[in-house]
């Protein structure tokens, strides 16, 4: 999963876009490279991933919390994609409840993150 996030970061860098500029007489259209502010915003995000990863390994949070963070989701968004109530998802963030979940709910979560159920249950290194 870590690699996938890095891919997403790589996709955002080096992007080119159309720009309009005026040279004193005429208007021109050109393609220009951008300063990468997105990566700076994402540093905060990747630091949070590290802390959550530690908490999952210590047994304080379930793997679901890790997948939510790496896929740029939050509880409210996930609830609107899966149609599972927010308070239920919050309960699923604890390992004890997550381990007792049935196949159907696990499949719903896995479909949103585009992974298999087995991948949902573990976190990669």
């Amino acid at each position: 999963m870590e690699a996938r996030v890095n891919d997403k970061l790589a996709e955002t860098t080096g992007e080119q876009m159309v720009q309009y500029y005026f040279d004193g007489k005429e208007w021109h259209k050109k393609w220009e490279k951008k300063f990468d502010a997105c990566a700076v915003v994402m540093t905060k995000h990747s630091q949070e991933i590290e802390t959550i990863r530690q908490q999952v390994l210590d047994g304080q949070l379930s793997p679901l919390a890790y997948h939510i963070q790496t896929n740029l989701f939050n509880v409210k968004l996930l609830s609107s994609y899966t149609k599972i109530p927010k308070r239920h998802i919050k309960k699923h963030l604890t390992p004890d409840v997550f381990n007792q979940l049935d196949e159907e709910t696990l499949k719903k979560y896995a479909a949103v993150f585009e992974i298999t159920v087995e991948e949902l249950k573990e976190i990669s290194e």
Partner: protein
Amino acid sequence: MITNFEHRPSAHCETGVTSNILNFYGCKLSESMIFGLGEGLSFIYIPFIPFKGNALKFSFRTVPGSVFARALKKLGVKIGVKRFTNKEEAMKEMDNLLAQGIPVGNVVGMYHLPHSPYRTHFNAHTLCVVGKEGDEYTISDPSWHTTLLKISYSDLMRVRFPAGAFKPNGKMFWIKEKPVIGDISHLIEQSIQKTCKKMLGIPFVSYFGVAGIVTMSKRMRKLEKRYGEKDARVYLASLIQAIEEIGTGGAGYRFMYGLFLHEAAEILNKPKLKDFSIEMTRIGDLWRLLALECGRKIKNRSEVSYNDLADKVVEIAAAEKKFFLALKKEKLEKNNS
């Protein structure tokens, strides 16, 4: 499959798609002209949203979808707009239109889009579906790609029905009759007046237009105290994103409006508007310089304080206020004479 659809890359998704569709019907209006007619220029400091990581608190444009609706309503073009509850029905209706040879504009979510450079949960990206071959659709995405692209049936369906804030529900739009556009000079004057009104703001409300920029400067002075040193930098980075990357990039639509004024000067025969166009690009450059200073601050390459940055923002606000007051008067002088 529509063969004679001309794919022209553009700076912004919504205006680009609109001008491409109009161009298909033989109405040659540029992207910036539609941006000006649709009154797209604005500034909003979005209140009440807590700042969490990359949540954006400022917008340099009006609500997504309004530019298309306003511009085509003014031009008197008959359009069809539809939303759906059933996914398969949405795809079937689009196939029917494509079979008749009509290009269909679609509002889609960005996150699951295969060719999207940004993985953000933003549900108001616009693209145009041009044709269908078997199980694959041909789409034109003018803001990101120079050529036509292909997308599968299941991908397009998923992208048209995302969840989260501002659900588009498979929103699609098309032009019903072949439009005939005559003289647009009075429309240009009308839309310039409305943009001035919008930028000069609502009295006693400090979130819209020039007043919004001043409010932003006030918040910037307190950044370090409020969020701490690290998060304050992330806040600045998200400001740079708003100025440089989102939508057109390049000082949030200021250059595009400058080009609109330049074209308007030729249509209205008013050479004075060309001076305004140059002044607008100067303001755009001020925004870009601000982004540059913010970038240096983030990388620790200069000793600019947050107060200095806020002073620059106040400078920009003053320049914009002066500009739009003068532009508003331009119309009045003509009426008196």
